[in-house]
């Protein structure tokens, strides 16, 4: 059974959010939006400004440096080196750099 008083109250509550007074946001909101756009645009703009050629040259240099290091370090990492050769190499190192000398 419906209670008319209760139903009227429900109608009243259901209408309580109708006809809200339009409210104005913070007057500085647009400035905040603009600063957000400009701050988030900066890294993208920086990336966009680097030309493709410069990126490729950079990559090539990096690869070339890696190859040069590997080639130079080649004898030092020779797995088949005999123990005598290794001892001689260590002695050269200690004498060259003055290690363990007092």
């Amino acid at each position, binding site marked *: 059974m419906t209670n008319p008083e209760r139903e009227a109250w429900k109608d009243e*509550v259901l209408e309580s*959010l109708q006809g809200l007074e*339009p*409210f104005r946001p913070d007057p500085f*909101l647009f400035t905040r939006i603009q600063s957000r756009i400009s701050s988030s645009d900066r890294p993208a703009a920086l990336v966009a400004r680097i030309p493709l050629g410069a990126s490729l040259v950079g990559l090539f240099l990096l690869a070339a440096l890696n190859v040069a290091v590997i080639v130079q370090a080649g004898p030092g990492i020779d797995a088949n080196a005999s123990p005598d050769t290794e001892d001689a190499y260590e002695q050269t190192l200690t004498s060259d750099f003055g290690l363990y000398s007092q």
Partner: protein
Amino acid sequence: MTDDRRLLHGIAQQDQGAFREFYDRHGDRVFNVALGFLRQQSDAEEVTQDVFVEVYRSAQRFRGDSSVGTWLHRITVRKSLDRIRHAKRKRRFATLTQSLGLGTGSEAAPQTDFEDPGVLLGRREDAALLSRLIDELPERQRTAFVLCFVQGLSRQEAADTMEVKLKALESLLQRAKSGLRAKLDPHFPGRGLDVRSEQRKSRQTASKDTE
């Protein structure tokens, strides 16, 4: 070309004047729609920012299938619902960490700290209750209800915003209203009086039976 489309064209060319004019035309509306969903001024301002940042970035992608107003409403509703979902996830996580004794509980703020500045003072209590109950509705019913009964959009505008047929929107509104009515039952202020009168009636019936 309408003014809005001309402005969007300007925004796509990064014309700051056009962007400012577009904001002046639609900023209040976007803010009030967001406020209708979030009931918090600060949250609504955040969403307004998100909406206009998206407008700025995607102005060139506006195809013109719908009106600019509908397109803006759609973005605003999506961003508002995203924010609500995010807040819900945060609350759930806070409750979980609290129950495990890991959190401080500071994140588990009450769900609706009602502060809509547009609500008339006399209606504030009812509006706060309704707002809390709207939060419990399924997302699509909630969207339909807020767009039509809070924001006062026409049925057609709301249907376009939600990308549903008019009939589907009517059905969502019907379900939202009956759901809210059912949820309002336990909150009826005269409930105590009702219970007492029902008890009196049942006592009278019982005494008649014994006679």
